[in-house]
């Protein structure tokens, strides 16, 4: 097994242009290099529109339309079949998206249980139901397990998504601004949760604008002009500078 949880080499990504007459679309990722060892806690910062979400989708095996190399848990994504990529997402990756995360017709608990429905390993996720309830407790939503997303606040919805990302105890958790909708106290709770996961050996890649998150991370990277680089200003020292 690879020592690296993630490995990106010369990754380029260009979106097909929406209006063809405006010429070939601008390249969004222009040679991203990244090596993340197992157990690292990475925070990714960057201006709005710099391509952070795009990068996270690539890391999560949701997008195979790139050039270069993306290895997740040692596997080159494009070499995998659709089913194999789906299985990788199901077992190895926990996802928290920036905005839309939940199926509106399912309750919070059912949303958390969703990965179990697509688990192809024999016996599925062990004790899935009990673990789903535990995960909801862990994000502070134990009392909302039967609420529908429509009845939850934006922050609550994002925490349900976080609980779902934890269900299968995946070795890699990817989160896109998980604290963006949270007040200071709740946000702090989520950061502490990340720290606990980190302590358990989970690899975390968190896209964030929040200094508190970056401070908790073991490494902070900045996505700028299509590349990942170390931030010029140490976020530990200049609070507020890390935000947009």
């Amino acid at each position, binding site marked *: 097994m690879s020592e690296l949880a993630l490995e990106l080499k010369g990754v380029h990504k260009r979106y097909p242009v929406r209006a063809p007459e405006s010429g070939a679309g601008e390249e969004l990722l222009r040679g991203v290099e990244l090596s993340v060892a197992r157990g690292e806690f990475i925070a990714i910062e960057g201006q709005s529109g710099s391509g952070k*979400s*795009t990068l996270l*989708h*690539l890391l*999560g095996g*949701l*997008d195979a*339309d790139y050039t270069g190399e993306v290895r997740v848990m040692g596997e080159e994504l494009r070499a995998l079949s*659709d*089913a194999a990529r*789906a*299985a990788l*997402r*199901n*077992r190895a990756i926990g*996802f928290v*998206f920036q905005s*839309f*995360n*939940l*199926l*509106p*017709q*399912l309750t919070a608990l*059912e949303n958390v249980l*969703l*990965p*179990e*429905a*697509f*688990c*192809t390993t024999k016996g*599925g996720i062990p004790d899935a139901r009990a673990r789903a309830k535990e995960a909801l407790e862990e994000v502070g939503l134990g009392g909302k397990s039967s609420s529908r997303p429509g009845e939850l606040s934006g922050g609550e919805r994002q925490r349900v998504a976080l609980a*779902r990302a934890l269900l299968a105890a995946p070795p890699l958790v990817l989160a896109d601004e998980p604290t963006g909708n949270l007040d200071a106290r709740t946000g702090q709770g989520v950061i502490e949760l990340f720290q606990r996961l980190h302590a358990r050996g989970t690899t975390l890649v968190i896209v964030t604008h929040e200094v508190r998150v970056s401070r908790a991370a073991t490494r902070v990277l900045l996505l700028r002009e299509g590349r990942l680089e170390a931030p010029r200003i140490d976020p530990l020292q200049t609070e507020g500078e890390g935000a947009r």
Partner: protein
Amino acid sequence: MKLSQLASITRRNLGRNVRTLLVSAFGVALGVGALTFFLALGAGLSVAVSTVFPPVTREIEVVLPQVAVGALLGGDRKLDDEAVAQLSRIRGVERAWPKMTLRFPALSRYNGSFFGKELHMGLEVIGVGIPSELVAADVKLPFVDPGAGSTKPIPIVINRRFLEIYNKVFAPQRGLPKLSESMLIGFTFPIDLGRSWVAARTMPNPQESSLQLVGFSDLATLAGVTMPLPAARRLNALFGLDSDTYSSVLLSARSSSEVSQIAEKVKEAGYDIDESERSRALQIGAAVRMATLALALLAALISLLSSVNIAQSFFASVRERRREIGILRAVGATRFDVQSLVLAEAAATGLSGGAVGLLGARFIAALLDHLARTRLPDFPFKPHSFFVFEPWMFAAGALVALCASIFGAWVPARKAAALDPARALAE
């Protein structure tokens, strides 16, 4: 993906777009309902037709050709004993039954009490003689010619369908009593042999005699009364008419599968086949089948339209749920899983629509039957039900419902499966 999870997610999705799905399901219900309704109606009418015209499956009636080609060529074809023997030797023929019509006119005049009513009536009677064994199973009294000089009535059998027509049309119109077969057995009435309403046809030596009804048979002629062959032969001779040749020969095939081959041989031998009875049953049966087929095709067309409707609403639903599909993919759904989810939803919609359609068809059929029983006047051979629902029709209905919905949702499902999850989630 596990089946139970598929079912559960599908159920939730269905619960969400109830209104659009109801429209889709209604289309399927209409198509499937119409299909089973028409199939059942066709089957019911077929049954009704076969009671009016029992399909003659093993009998062939051989007659002389209308325009005897043989005669033109100098040949002289006759339906005599030799011809009967020849016909009975055709492969597959079990037995040949000669028939001889009365070749003189006859008149039945009835004056008197008829089952409690006064009846005055005169009828030209057409008679035909047949071998007694042909109707042996149907007669209740001896069916033998009493012979010359006897004062006993000549036994006759009449076709069963007469009684139905008498009871449903004739009797009600004239205020005559309805009769059952058992009431009529033994009924005797006078007949003037050699006499006709048409004066010119009356023979010089008319005879008074009487007929006694001894049974009802499907094999009896529809055109008059059927008597023992020796009686017909004797009476024709009495009037100095041809008593050697037969008017037709009925061939019974050993099995119905041999009928067409026998018919061919009969024609090769220069005879003709009287297909009026057989072809009437066949023609009406064919007409019913054609009508059923046309209506079933119409129903199939409705089903096809319902699939177009399903396609439309599932295109809309997939478009609306792009991000949800993205989420499903993110938590581990394969393209195939996504496709299965959409198809399962369509199948559930279609099957529930189909079930409603089947129940609806059954209900409307029951309602129409009830109206027919209570509101329609009685008519001959009025069936108790115009519909026959058979299990295969329900199975076919369910299958059509399933196919229509899967067919309609196929392209939307493929589209959902092909969706780029990253792009859907970025929206």
